[in-house]
């Protein structure tokens, strides 16, 4: 986008700030970033690789429980993301395209998982699905279990990451407006055709952005999963839980090795996010109708 006249004065005034102000503020920001982000991230890798690559690899692959935790996370996170994808698109569509009773309530409720502590979220699900809980007796009678199982992990992870996709899509869909969809409808398209050919191409970058954020959060989730999983090694221990188990066992090399994998996943997510953000912006500028 071209510079608008309003960009001018702020840029100039920033440039006219005294030198010492600029130097001080910049150094403070850099110092905080170094102490809080850069050093810890590097130390994770340093610690993980302290005994050399061979030991690192051994730490990661030697233990069956650790291997299982990696696979479990790579299964739980995508499933939770998938649930959120469906829910997020449906919620954003409903909120931006229809006027209905309880619309404002829905908008507010979507944010609840953001404001509730994950550990509380975990406890809520225990309350619901434990043998003495609300659905517990019924589940037991039908031979089903949610607590301490993979479906339970997916469920709490979905809950904790619920707002990501919907929150990302609502403003995008509001900005685009319903006219293109109505035009497609009057041209004879059915609901699926409208969604796949008009809505989805318009929201795809926003959607992808939401999915990436959602996935990052889902992979790193600890609190809620901690409560619901029962921490059964080799069964319900996801990567973050396994890191904690290893750490508690005074097996720090293995804990740091696994932590470094999680960190790498986070870095990849971050890079993807930056790339998608760029695409999102440029597509918004190029394709303003």
């Amino acid at each position, binding site marked *: 986008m071209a510079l608008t006249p309003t960009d001018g004065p702020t840029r100039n005034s920033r440039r006219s700030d005294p030198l010492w102000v600029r130097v001080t503020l910049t150094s403070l920001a850099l110092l905080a970033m170094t102490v809080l982000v850069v050093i810890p991230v590097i130390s994770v890798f340093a610690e993980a690789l302290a005994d050399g690559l061979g030991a690192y690899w051994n730490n990661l692959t030697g233990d069956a429980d650790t291997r299982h935790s990696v696979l479990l996370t790579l299964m739980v996170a995508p499933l939770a993301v998938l649930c959120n994808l469906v829910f997020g698109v449906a919620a954003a569509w409903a909120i931006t395209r229809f006027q209905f009773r309880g619309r404002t309530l829905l908008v507010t409720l979507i944010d609840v998982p953001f404001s509730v502590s994950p550990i509380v979220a975990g406890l809520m699900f225990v309350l619901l699905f434990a043998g003495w809980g609300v659905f517990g007796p019924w589940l037991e009678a039908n031979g089903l279990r949610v607590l301490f199982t993979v479906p339970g992990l997916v469920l709490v992870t979905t809950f904790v990451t619920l707002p990501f996709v919907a929150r990302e899509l609502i403003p995008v869909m509001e900005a685009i407006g319903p006219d293109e969809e109505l035009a497609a*409808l009057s041209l004879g398209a059915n609901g699926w055709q409208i969604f796949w050919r008009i809505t989805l191409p318009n929201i795809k970058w926003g959607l992808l952005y939401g999915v990436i954020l959602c996935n990052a959060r889902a992979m790193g989730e600890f609190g809620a999963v901690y409560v619901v999983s029962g921490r059964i090694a080799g069964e319900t221990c996801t990567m973050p839980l396994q890191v904690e188990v290893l750490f508690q066992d005074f097996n720090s090399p293995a804990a740091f090795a696994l932590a470094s994998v999680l960190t790498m996943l986070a870095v990849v997510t971050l890079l993807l996010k930056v790339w998608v953000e760029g695409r999102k912006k440029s597509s918004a500028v190029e394709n303003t*109708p």
Partner: protein
Amino acid sequence: MSITAQNVTKRFGAFTALDNVSVDCPAGELVALLGPSGSGKTTLLRVIAGLEVPDSGTVHFRDDDITSHSARDRNVGFVFQHYALFRHMTVFENVAFGLRVRKWPEPKIRERVKEMLHLVRLEEKAEQYPANLSGGQKQRIALVRALAPEPKVMLLDEPFGALDAKVRAELRDWLRRLHGELKHVTSIFVTHDQEEAFEVADRVVVLNKGKVEQYGTPITVFEHPKNEFVMDFLGNVNKLPVRVEGGRALLGETGTVELPAKLFGANENGRTDAYIRPHELDISRTAEGGNCLLGKIVHINPAGSVVKVRLLAEDFGLMINVDITPDRYRALALKQNETVFVTPKTARIFEPDYTI
């Protein structure tokens, strides 16, 4: 295909957008829905298109009741004020969309899209994206996109509202000619611009506050407005207080100037308002017929095809607008602050039972 909306009512919460509206558009005609914002004209158009469901009333295409049909089954071409082009598709794909979802064979789609782009002289833009088009080009593409699947009904929602004056006039002209060439297409368009409605439409429906005020050809609506609202909405008008005495309409409380207006029985001996358009008044330097009022010239605007003169009739405390021809203006050599005679050539008084 004729379009009939019968007793259509639509409420949004406490707001009544359409209040028992009936409109009938004969096959092949171009009808304008004219009214101020909030008059319900766009809602009526959307009800006809199937984009809005009426609370009561029916919509018929020819003899078929299509009230419960979805918008996609009505085979209606709809044009939005802000174009609503598919931003991620090329111009070609935009125009082809309606044909693709109707499963036309590919060669026929190519042929039809080419024909449509030729119609609006935008063949060279086929591979461009909507973002690269000007406003006028976008609206022309939106028009042919709606036309491509050969609808029997075209509905246009303020199609030229977002364009600048010159492009608007061009497109207006073009729409008029296009409608003439397209046999068997019935079109309805929404506008708040009376000039646009009169210039383009075969018939005009004047709407106000969710009700039809008048329905007729542009000439009838303009020359014989049914009530004060229509009179007032269609261009400038002077509103003068009169008293009715013995079958004569006399200006002001005590004046003796008689206005040449047709009276209704109910007007007998009372107070009411008379309406005179600026071009229905004449200015002269002598009190020719005697039946005239004195006015001091406050302002003259000679720029335009008519000269607009604004006068203050001090005897009555009224501001009066008069339009005269440039020839007349030169012959009279009018100047500001001069006092001249103003003669009403005609005046209108409406039945008093009408309340705004």
